[in-house]
């Protein structure tokens, strides 16, 4: 195999990994606050469609991105209202979000199927850095959303582990009653991070429709939201490990695509199964490993918080 193919495959790895990374980061933030968000897939679809439509109307992908962030957050607001305020079952609420988002994007997307957009995110080489041998063309000839995702990883990690609001976030996810006693607004924190998670999921969707394959296809997320939920466990709720896991899956995708392109003897249907099967296998290892090392989910994940009544 020559070097160009390796570089092309690894560059495709980053591209395929980025929507997973964005969605995984979003889910990490929500789960750190104790909110399990199974609506990721639906939020991504709504983000992908709304970003696409707005980019089509304004021919500005950045405006599309902003709208995708906002629409992801709006859908997340439904989830937050149901699970935080109304203490609904988080699993069922998340599923409802996914079903709703899938339906809504299918319904509204009918009008833009097959429509080309005038403008979308294209790779921009970063002067200087792109000349680094081998890594330069892989890491620094990407589109702006990829660069944003590079920045988000250390930023969110710093936020979670090194800042006061990050401490509050972790406290709310681990022990909401204690956090409450310390004066942290548990409901507010949960709302905030569920919305941030939704916005990032919307951005992940916009990456698909405005950069990865700049068209609208019904159900174009193809289960990436669910893979991201599994990656959160693999990443043990840590942004840097989320990066690792997302690119690992990006690699699976990129290799699988390359094999299809060179016409390997395995039918494409089986190659298309690999991301899903790989997720299940990784999930098995991640679950047993986290159990063995006693790294658990945030202790209050999935549990509604009920404030003791003061009388």
């Amino acid at each position, binding site marked *: 195999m020559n070097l160009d193919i390796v570089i092309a495959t690894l560059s495709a790895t980053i591209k395929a990994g980025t929507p997973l990374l964005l969605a995984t980061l979003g889910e990490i933030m929500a789960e750190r606050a104790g909110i399990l968000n199974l609506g990721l897939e639906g939020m991504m679809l709504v983000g992908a469609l709304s970003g696409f439509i707005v980019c089509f109307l304004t021919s500005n992908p950045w405006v599309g991105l902003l709208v995708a962030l906002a629409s992801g957050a709006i859908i997340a607001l439904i989830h937050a209202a149901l699970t935080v305020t109304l*203490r609904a079952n988080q*699993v069922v609420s998340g599923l409802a979000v996914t079903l*709703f988002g899938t339906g809504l994007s299918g319904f509204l997307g009918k009008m833009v199927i097959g429509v080309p957009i005038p403008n979308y995110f294209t790779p921009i080489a970063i002067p200087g850095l792109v000349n680094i041998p081998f890594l330069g063309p892989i890491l620094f000839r990407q589109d702006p959303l990829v660069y944003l995702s590079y920045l988000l990883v250390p930023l969110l990690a710093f936020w979670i582990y090194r800042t006061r609001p990050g401490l509050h976030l972790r406290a709310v996810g681990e022990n909401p009653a204690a956090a409450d006693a310390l004066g942290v607004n548990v409901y507010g924190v949960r709302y905030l991070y569920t919305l941030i998670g939704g916005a990032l999921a919307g951005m992940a969707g916009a990456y698909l429709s405005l950069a990865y394959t700049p068209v609208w296809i019904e159900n174009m997320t193809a*289960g990436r939201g669910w893979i991201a939920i599994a990656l959160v466990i693999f990443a043990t709720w840590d942004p840097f490990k989320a990066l690792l896991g997302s690119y690992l899956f990006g690699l699976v995708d990129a290799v699988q695509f390359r094999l299809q392109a060179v016409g390997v003897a395995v039918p494409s249907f089986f190659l298309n199964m690999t991301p*899903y099967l790989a997720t299940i296998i990784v*999930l098995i290892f991640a*679950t047993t490993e986290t159990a063995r090392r006693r790294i658990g989910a945030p202790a209050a994940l999935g549990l509604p918080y009920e404030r003791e009544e003061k*009388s």
Partner: protein
Amino acid sequence: MSLVLEKRESSSPLVNFLVPVLSVLFALLLGALIIYLSGFDPGVAYMEMLSGAFGSGYAISETIVKAIPLMLCALGVGLAFKTVLWNIGAEGQLYMGAWAAGWVALSFPQGQSWWLIPLMMIAGFLAGALWGLVPGILKASLNVNEIITSLLLNYVAILWVDYFVYGPWKDPKGYGFPFTPFFGEGAWLPTFFGTRVHLGIVFALFAAIIIYFLLKSTRLGYEIRVIGENPRAAKYAGMNIFRNIIIVFIISGGLAGLAGMAEVSGVIHRLQHAISPGYGYTAIIIAWLSRLNPITTVLVAILFGGLLVGGFSVRSIGLSESLVYVIQGIILFLLLAGDILTRYRLSWRGRS
């Protein structure tokens, strides 16, 4: 004075009934708003849906045809939910059941023997059960999150069926379309009264009755309820949780597999790309809406069958059938929002 939530000591039958009913009604109202905003007349659209789904004998029979796989899937999903096992994989289990039944049918193209349909039923049930066993075993032995595994297997199952209908089993006379040849007529489920309603309705009703009694008056049903309500108590009482998880996934997956078998044997009469318009996902809503009661599940499934059929008929006025899935999502949102009233009561409390 302020409005506060107080925990209910016991559940109120009136509220338990009203919350789902009002959820559906309000969801339809919100759906009307969406129809209006997309430039259509909600009245016309809903009349079209209503007459398409329940307006004639034919309409009702079509609604029941759609309700059959919904009932079977929702019964299985509901049984798993009762154990607090989230089987989101009914869609994939349905596909695997359809695939296995199709395999049997295509292996005996001339088959007119009495045993062909029972064999297809067994194959369909077993394939669905096996597909459900994967998340079941992983959950029971390693505590792997069954929501994610069962859901991801849906994608795998659909690709699996696609491989066969686009590849080795494709009808050579099908002009390249992704379907197999028709099954021999010996592999078709009998239908009733000249409609498309097929024997699958009997499977579904039978399954509902069995699950009702299973939950009500068997040891397994008792253990399922205890595990669902208080897993720790179940463990201390010496119940075999591993075994119960496995059994629930076998039944749950098997019923979805049987739904797939009934769909290809009773309605489509061959395997094809896209057998199901998301029956396995709609089943989740039905199970939740019917409060996991098997008998209610049957009735709610008919309502949702009507919603699906009505969704197809609004296409005639230019609306997308995805509207139905939007309304389904909204129903579930409202139901979840309303659920708080089944657990708490609203009351006014004066300032002390």
